[in-house]
C-alpha cells in the first residue's frame, strides 16, 4: 500500500512532507525555549525533552500526560535504554503546556514524509493520520501515540544522540578514540586507562555540540531496559492518597462552583432566578453562561445544594423530538439514500454479489452512544489576577487547553498558563474541543476576584458527555463456490469517516466500505479505541455469521482468509492454542473468537462464556494475544490489555447512553452500570514480539472483547447479538 503525500493541518498550519525523522523535529527554535523553561544552574539540556544535572541526575520532560497507561515510565525506559542512563537517577516531569513541548511536529513529520514510511507501516500511518487530523491539537495524549511516536522517534533518538555527544566530549577530554569508550549507568568509561567520567561531569560541554539527527539506535538484542518489566513510577503516590489530581487542587481563599448545562445538547439558558440558590448558606454567586448556570459557594456541598434549588429554563435547540430510535431511523434513511459521503475498498463487490452460485448474507448491527465514565468528574481551578489567568486541571492536550482558555477568557495566549495535573481517567473524554469545563472555568474565573474550582457532579458528567457515537453498520457479503468470501460491503452511518482507522485484515478480492454521514445534536467524540470498537464489532460478528453460514469453524474460517506468514495469522493461531480452541468446554459453556487490528497493534481474544441463573451472560475467562511489535514494559502492557478487555466487556454487556426528547436519559452509575469486580473474568494476556513497528497498547485490547463475547453467546445459545448492549437479549 502506498501512502499519498498529504497536507497535514494543525491549528491552521499546513505541514507538507519533507524533513527528517526524530531530532530534526525538535531542533527548531523551540528547543532553545524549552531549555530556558526547564534548565536551571548546573543543568544542561539536550533536545527538547531531557536535561542532565552536574550531580548526574537526568530529568525527562514528558509531553504526554500519564493517566494510568504507564507512558511516563515507558518513555523514560526508551530514553534510558539509548542513553545508557542510570535508572535510579532518572526523574520524569510533566512538561508544561507550552509549544516547546509539542509532540505533533514529530508525528506530523512521520506521517507526511511519505518517502520514509516503509510499506509495512503504511496502515499505521493511515490510521493515526485520520485520528490526528481530526484532533487538530498539538500536545496530545491519545490515539495510542505516546510510545509509537514520541517514544520510538523522539525519546530513543534523543537518548542515542545525547549519548553520542557525551561520548564525543569524553573522548576529546581524555584524548582517546571514541571507539575505546563504553557507557553504562550514566558513566562513560575508558577501560584501557581505567578512567571514567559521569554524564553530569560531561553534560555542560556536551550540550554545546549539535546532536546527530540520525544516531545509531540499539538493536533489539542489546536492549536492557526496553522489554524488561519496570515498576511504574506513578504508583506509590496512588496507594497512600498523596497523588494530586485536578480535583484535589487547592488555593487559599478559593471558592467552589458546580454547574448545570442545558439538558438538551444545543439548548441555551433562557432564564434563571438566582434567589433560591442565594438563600442557601455558603452560596456567593450565581453565574449565567450561554448554555449553563453555575453556582459558586464556600464549598462543593453548598454549591451543589444551591444548584439543586434553582429552576433554570433552557431551550431545546430544536432537538426536543430526538430519541435513540429516531437516530437509528435517520441513519437507516441516510444509508438507504445510496449516496455515501466517503468510499473505501477495492474491487467490484456488485459483481461478486451477482456472481452465479454466490451465497449471500446481509446483517445490520447497531451500537449505542457510550460514555467514558472516567472516575474523576471534570474539575478545574481558575484564578484570574492582574490580567493573567492560571488554570489547573487534567486534560489530554494541555497546549490545546491553554489556547482554548485564552479564547474563552478573551486573553492573549501568553497571559494564560495551564498547569497539567494527574487525570482520574480520560479514555478520550478529556480533549479540549469537547471538554466543556474549559469554557466554563475560563468564563467563571474572569467574573470573580478569587480563585474558583469548578467541579462537575456525576450526573452532569453522565448527561453532558461526549460519547462514542451511536452508529449503525449494514453489512453484505458473498461466499464464492470455493467457500471463500468473494465480496464484502460495509455501509455505515455515523458522523465521521472511519476508513483511515479501520483495518480490514482479511484477504477478500472485492471490498467496499461506504460512509454515510449522520449528525445529531450530540458531540462526535473519542472514546477508548475510537472507531475500532463499532467496526470491530461489525466485522468480527459478521465474519462469524459467514463462518456459521458456510458451516466452518469460526477460527478456521478466519484462518482461511488471512495471509500465510501475517501477524494476524500468528496472533490468531497463538490465541486458539492458548485457549485450547479445539478441546470442547463442559456443557453450558462456549467460546467465541475475534481479531481486530487497531493503532498498529494486532489483537485477538478468545472469550469463554456461560449463563448466570437469571439467563444473563457470564464471562468466565478471556485469552488475549497481542502483537504490538515490541512491548516496552510488559507488565504494564498486560495491565493495559486487561483494562481494555474489562471496559470492552462492560460496554458489551450493559452500557448505553440513550436519548429521549433530545436529552440523555441516564444520570449516574445505577443507570449507566459499569462492570464490577465480581463480573470481571480471569484474563490471560500473551504478547508476541515481532519485527513490526511498535504499536499502541492503551486501546487495542478493547475492540475484540465485544464481538468475541457475542460470538461465544451465539455458540452457546444460537442467539446472534446484532445490537449492543447485550442486556437481556440472550435470556429473553
Amino acid at each position, binding site marked *: 500500500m502506498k501512502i499519498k503525500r498529504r497536507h497535514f493541518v494543525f491549528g491552521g498550519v499546513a505541514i507538507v512532507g519533507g524533513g527528517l525523522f526524530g531530532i530534526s523535529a525538535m531542533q527548531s527554535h523551540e528547543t532553545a525555549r524549552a531549555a530556558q523553561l526547564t534548565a536551571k544552574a548546573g543543568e544542561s539540556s539536550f533536545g527538547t525533552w531531557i536535561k542532565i544535572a552536574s550531580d548526574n541526575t537526568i530529568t525527562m520532560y514528558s509531553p504526554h500526560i500519564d*493517566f494510568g497507561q504507564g507512558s511516563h515510565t515507558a518513555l523514560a525506559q526508551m530514553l534510558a535504554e539509548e542513553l545508557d542512563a542510570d535508572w535510579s537517577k532518572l526523574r520524569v516531569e510533566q512538561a508544561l503546556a507550552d509549544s516547546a513541548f509539542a509532540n505533533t511536529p514529530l508525528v506530523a513529520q512521520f506521517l507526511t514524509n511519505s518517502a520514509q514510511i516503509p510499506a509495512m507501516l503504511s496502515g499505521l500511518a493511515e490510521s493515526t493520520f485520520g485520528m490526528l487530523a481530526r484532533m487538530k491539537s498539538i500536545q496530545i495524549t491519545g490515539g495510542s501515540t505516546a510510545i509509537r511516536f514520541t517514544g520510538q522517534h523522539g525519546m530513543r533518538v534523543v537518548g542515542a544522540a545525547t549519548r553520542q555527544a557525551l561520548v564525543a566530549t569524553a573522548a576529546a577530554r581524555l584524548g582517546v578514540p571514541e571507539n575505546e569508550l563504553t557507557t553504562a549507568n550514566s558513566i562513560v568509561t575508558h577501560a584501557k586507562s581505567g578512567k571514567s567520567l559521569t554524564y553530569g561531569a560531561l553534560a555542560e560541554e556536551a550540550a554545546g555540540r549539535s546532536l546527530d539527527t540520525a544516531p545509531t539506535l540499539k538493536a533489539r538484542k542489546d536492549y536492557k531496559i526496553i522489554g524488561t518489566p519496570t515498576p511504574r513510577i506513578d504508583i506509590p503516590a496512588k496507594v497512600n492518597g498523596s497523588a494530586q489530581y485536578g480535583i484535589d487542587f487547592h488555593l487559599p481563599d478559593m471558592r467552589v462552583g458546580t454547574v448545570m448545562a442545558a439538558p438538551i445538547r444545543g439548548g441555551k439558558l433562557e432564564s434563571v432566578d438566582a434567589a433560591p440558590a442565594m438563600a442557601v448558606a455558603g452560596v456567593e454567586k450565581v453565574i449565567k453562561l450561554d448554555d449553563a448556570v453555575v453556582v459558586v459557594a464556600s464549598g462543593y456541598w453548598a454549591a451543589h445544594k444551591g444548584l439543586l434549588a434553582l429552576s433554570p429554563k433552557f431551550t431545546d435547540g430544536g432537538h426536543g423530538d430526538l430519541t435513540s430510535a429516531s437516530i437509528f431511523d435517520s441513519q437507516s434513511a441516510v444509508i438507504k439514500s445510496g449516496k455515501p459521503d466517503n468510499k473505501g475498498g477495492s474491487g467490484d463487490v456488485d459483481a461478486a454479489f451477482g456472481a452465479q452460485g454466490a451465497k449471500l448474507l446481509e446483517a445490520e448491527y447497531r451500537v449505542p452512544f457510550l460514555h467514558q465514565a472516567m472516575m474523576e468528574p471534570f474539575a478545574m481551578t481558575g484564578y484570574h489576577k492582574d490580567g493573567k489567568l492560571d488554570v489547573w486541571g487534567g486534560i489530554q492536550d494541555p497546549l490545546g487547553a491553554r489556547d482554548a482558555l485564552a479564547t474563552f477568557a478573551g486573553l492573549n495566549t501568553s497571559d494564560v498558563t495551564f498547569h497539567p495535573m*494527574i487525570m482520574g481517567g480520560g479514555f478520550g473524554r478529556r480533549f479540549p474541543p469537547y471538554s466543556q469545563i474549559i469554557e466554563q472555568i475560563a468564563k467563571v474565573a474572569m467574573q470573580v476576584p478569587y480563585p474558583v474550582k469548578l467541579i462537575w457532579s456525576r450526573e452532569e458528567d453522565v448527561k453532558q458527555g461526549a460519547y462514542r457515537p451511536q452508529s449503525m453498520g449494514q453489512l453484505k457479503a458473498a461466499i464464492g463456490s470455493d467457500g471463500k468470501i468473494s465480496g464484502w460491503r460495509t455501509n455505515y452511518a455515523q458522523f465521521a469517516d472511519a476508513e483511515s482507522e479501520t483495518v480490514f485484515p482479511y484477504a477478500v478480492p472485492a471490498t467496499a466500505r461506504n460512509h454515510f454521514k449522520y449528525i445529531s445534536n450530540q458531540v462526535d467524540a473519542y472514546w477508548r479505541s475510537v472507531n475500532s470498537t463499532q467496526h470491530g464489532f461489525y466485522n468480527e460478528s459478521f465474519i462469524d455469521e459467514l463462518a456459521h453460514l458456510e458451516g466452518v469453524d469460526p477460527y478456521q474460517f478466519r484462518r482461511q482468509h488471512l495471509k500465510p506468514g501475517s501477524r494476524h495469522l500468528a496472533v490468531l493461531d497463538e490465541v486458539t492454542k492458548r485457549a485450547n480452541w479445539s478441546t470442547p468446554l463442559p456443557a453450558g459453556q462456549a467460546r467465541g473468537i475475534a481479531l481486530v487490528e487497531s493503532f498498529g497493534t494486532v489483537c485477538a481474544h478468545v472469550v469463554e462464556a456461560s449463563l448466570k441463573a437469571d439467563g444473563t451472560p457470564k464471562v468466565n475467562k478471556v485469552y488475549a494475544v497481542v502483537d504490538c511489535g515490541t512491548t516496552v514494559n510488559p507488565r504494564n502492557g498486560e495491565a493495559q490489555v486487561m483494562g481494555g478487555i*474489562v471496559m470492552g466487556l462492560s460496554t458489551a454487556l450493559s452500557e448505553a447512553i440513550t436519548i429521549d426528547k433530545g436529552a440523555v436519559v441516564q444520570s449516574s452509575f*445505577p443507570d449507566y452500570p459499569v*462492570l464490577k469486580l465480581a463480573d470481571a473474568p480471569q484474563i490471560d494476556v500473551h504478547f508476541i514480539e515481532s519485527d513490526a513497528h511498535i504499536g499502541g497498547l492503551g486501546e487495542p485490547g478493547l475492540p475484540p472483547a465485544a464481538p468475541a463475547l457475542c460470538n461465544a453467546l451465539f455458540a452457546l445459545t444460537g442467539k446472534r447479538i446484532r445490537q449492543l448492549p447485550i442486556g437481556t437479549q440472550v435470556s429473553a
Partner: protein
Amino acid sequence: MTIQAQINGKPVTINAAADTPLLWVLREEIGLTGTKFGCGIAACGACSVHIDGEVMRSCSVAVGDVAGKSITTIEALGTEVAPHPLQVAWIAHEVPQCGYCQSGQLMAAAALLKKTPTPSDADIDAAMTNICRCGTYPRIRAAIHAVAQGAKA
C-alpha cells in the same frame, strides 16, 4: 454546628452544616484529598473510609452523624515506614492505573481482610463492589489473595 470526632487518630473539631457529607468535610475542611468524589450517591465507592472500623462511603454519611466517632482515611491506612500490607501488595502487583478509585478500593479491601483474613473469591466478589473504570479488578483480586496468603504464612 460544631462536631467533635477523631480523624486518623487525632481529635478534631469540625465546623460544618450537619447535613454536609463527611466526604466534603474531609476534602475541603480537613484537607485530606486522598478520599475521592466519584458519584455522591454511594454507588462507586471512591470515597470509602473507615468509621469505627467499618467501611463506609463518606459521600453519603452526614458529618452530623459522626460525632464522637473514629474515622480513618487512606492517608492513615499505613505510614511511610509501616505501610499497610495491602499498600505493599498494590505496589508489588502494580494495581493502580489512573489510581483515582484506588483509595476506596484499598479501604474496602482493608475492611474485608480485617473481618475475613483469608477471603475466598466469593468473599472478594461480595466485598469489593467499588467501581474501577481502568479495569484493574484482576490485579485487585490477586493482590488481596497475596496479602491473605502472606498473613496465613
